[in-house]
C-alpha cells in the first residue's frame, strides 16, 4: 500500500460488525436473568429458540453457507468490482493506487434477497409442517437424523472417508446450469436474483435449520426461525468473504477446519438431544448421570430431603435452567402423582416430556400441573426431558 494512502476498512465490515454487536446487545438485554425492566412475553420459549437459531447462524451457519454459496456472492460482486477498476483506471491513469471497490450495494442487495428468500422458505416449511403432527418421538427421530447428517458433514469436511461425501447434497443438473448461467448476468438486479437463488443450494447447517422450521408446524414460527438464522449468517458471511479476499486461501482453509469442528460438536449435541427425547439411557446426559453415581448421589444429597406433598406425591421444580431435583426417587409398584411446579419459567423446560409414557405437556409459566405416574418395577428408571432434549432428569424406582 502506498504511504500516502490511508489504510481503510471496507464499510461493509463496519456495518456488519455493528449489526452483530447490536444483535448481541439486544439478546443480552432480552435474556437477562431476573430482569424486571423488560417484560418477557409468555412465549419467550419461542424467543430463546429464535436466539439459538440466530447464534447458530452467527457462529457456524455463515461459514458453512459461505463454502457453498460463496460462488454466487462472488458473481454478484464481480461486475461491480470490475466496473470500479475500469472507472478508477479512467480517472487515475497516472497513479498506481488501488481502487476501493464499491461492494456495499451488491453485497447488501444479495444479503437482503437471501434473507427474504429464506424467510419465505421458512414460512412455507412451517405451513407444510402444520399438516404434520410431530410427536416427541417423531421429533426425536428428526433430531437424531439431523445430528447424524451434521456429524457426517463434519467428517466429510475432515475428508475422513469418501463415503461421507454423500452427506453433501448436490442440486440437480438443471438447477446448477440455471444458477451458473444467471450468475453470468451483469445487470444491477443480478445480486438480488442470485441472493434469491441461494435457497436452491443450502448448506448442511441451513438444511438442518430447514428441518427445524418444518418441525415448528407454524408459518410465523417457521419464517421467524429462518429469518433469525439467515440474519445470523449474514455478518459472518460478509466478514469472512472480506477476510478471505484480503488474506487468501490459507485463512479460508483454517476457517473451514474451524467450521468442521463446530459442526461436529453441534452434531453430537443434536444427536444427544434426540436420544434424550427418545428417553434413551444411552444419551450422554443419562449415561453420565448413571455412570457417575457420585454426581447423582451428590445432587440427591444436595436436594434432600426430597420434597413430597401431603398425598405422597413428588414435587419437581421446573426452572428456566432445568429440572430440580434431577433425580427423584419413587416407591416401586404403586401409582403416584408428580407435581410439576413452574414459577416464571419461560425456557423450553416448560415443554415437559416423559418419553416412555408418551406424555407431553406445555406447562403454564407459573402454576402446578399434576401427572399421574403408573406403577413401575423396582430398579427401573423413567427419564424426563424438555421438548428440545436439552434439560433432563430421571425418576428412579426403589
Amino acid at each position, binding site marked *: 500500500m502506498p504511504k500516502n494512502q490511508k489504510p481503510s476498512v471496507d464499510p461493509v465490515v463496519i456495518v456488519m460488525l455493528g449489526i452483530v454487536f447490536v444483535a448481541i446487545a439486544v439478546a443480552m438485554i432480552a435474556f437477562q436473568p431476573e430482569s424486571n425492566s423488560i417484560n418477557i412475553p409468555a412465549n419467550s420459549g419461542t424467543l430463546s429458540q429464535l436466539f439459538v437459531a440466530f447464534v447458530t447462524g452467527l457462529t457456524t451457519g455463515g461459514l458453512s453457507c459461505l463454502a*457453498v454459496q460463496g460462488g454466487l456472492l462472488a458473481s454478484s460482486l464481480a461486475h461491480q468490482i470490475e466496473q470500479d477498476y475500469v472507472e478508477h483506471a479512467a480517472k487515475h491513469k497516472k497513479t498506481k493506487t488501488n481502487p476501493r471497490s464499491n461492494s456495499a450495494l451488491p453485497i447488501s442487495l444479495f444479503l437482503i434477497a437471501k434473507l427474504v428468500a429464506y424467510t419465505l422458505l421458512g414460512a412455507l416449511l412451517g405451513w407444510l409442517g402444520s399438516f404434520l403432527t410431530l410427536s416427541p418421538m417423531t421429533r426425536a427421530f428428526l433430531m437424531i437424523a439431523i445430528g447424524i447428517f451434521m456429524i457426517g458433514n463434519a467428517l466429510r469436511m475432515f475428508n475422513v472417508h469418501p463415503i461421507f*461425501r*454423500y452427506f*453433501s447434497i*448436490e*442440486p440437480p443438473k438443471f438447477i*446448477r446450469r440455471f444458477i*451458473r448461467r444467471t450468475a*453470468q448476468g451483469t445487470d444491477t438486479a443480478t445480486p438480488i436474483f442470485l441472493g434469491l437463488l441461494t435457497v436452491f443450494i443450502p448448506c448442511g447447517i441451513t438444511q438442518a435449520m430447514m428441518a427445524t422450521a418444518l418441525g415448528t408446524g407454524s408459518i410465523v414460527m417457521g419464517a421467524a426461525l429462518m429469518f433469525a438464522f439467515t440474519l445470523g449468517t449474514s455478518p459472518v458471511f460478509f466478514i469472512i468473504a472480506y477476510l478471505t479476499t484480503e488474506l487468501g486461501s490459507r485463512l479460508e482453509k483454517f476457517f473451514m477446519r474451524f467450521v468442521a469442528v463446530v459442526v461436529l460438536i453441534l452434531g453430537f449435541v443434536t444427536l444427544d438431544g434426540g436420544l434424550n427425547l427418545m428417553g434413551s439411557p444411552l444419551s450422554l446426559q443419562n449415561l453420565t448421570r448413571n455412570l457417575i453415581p457420585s454426581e447423582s448421589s451428590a445432587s440427591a444429597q444436595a436436594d434432600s430431603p426430597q420434597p413430597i406433598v401431603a398425598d405422597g406425591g413428588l414435587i419437581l421444580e421446573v426452572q428456566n435452567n432445568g429440572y430440580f431435583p434431577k433425580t427423584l426417587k419413587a416407591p416401586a409398584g404403586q401409582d403416584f402423582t408428580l407435581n410439576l411446579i413452574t414459577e416464571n419459567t419461560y425456557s423450553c423446560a416448560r415443554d415437559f416430556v416423559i418419553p416412555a409414557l408418551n406424555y407431553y405437556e406445555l406447562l403454564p409459566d407459573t402454576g402446578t400441573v399434576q401427572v399421574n405416574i403408573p406403577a413401575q418395577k423396582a430398579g427401573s428408571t423413567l427419564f424426563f426431558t424438555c421438548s428440545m432434549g436439552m434439560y433432563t432428569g430421571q425418576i428412579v424406582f426403589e
Partner: protein
Amino acid sequence: MIKKTFQIPDMTCSNCAMKLESLEDTLEGVKEINASYHRLEMVIEYDESKLTDEQIVAAVKKKGYQAVLKQ
C-alpha cells in the same frame, strides 16, 4: 462427439462441481459436462476435432483443480 471421464481429486464441495461445469460455456467444442463431487469426477462430452485432452486438463487447472483422465 466423444465422452470421457476425468478424475478431479481435489474437489471439496458441490460448488466445485458447478465451477467445473462452467467450462461448458467457455471451452470450445464442449457439448456437455457433468461434474460430481460425490464421485470426484467430471464426465465431458466434446468434439475431438476441436478439443484435446491436454486442453481440457489445462482448462481444469485454470479453475484450480487437477484433472486425470480415467482409463
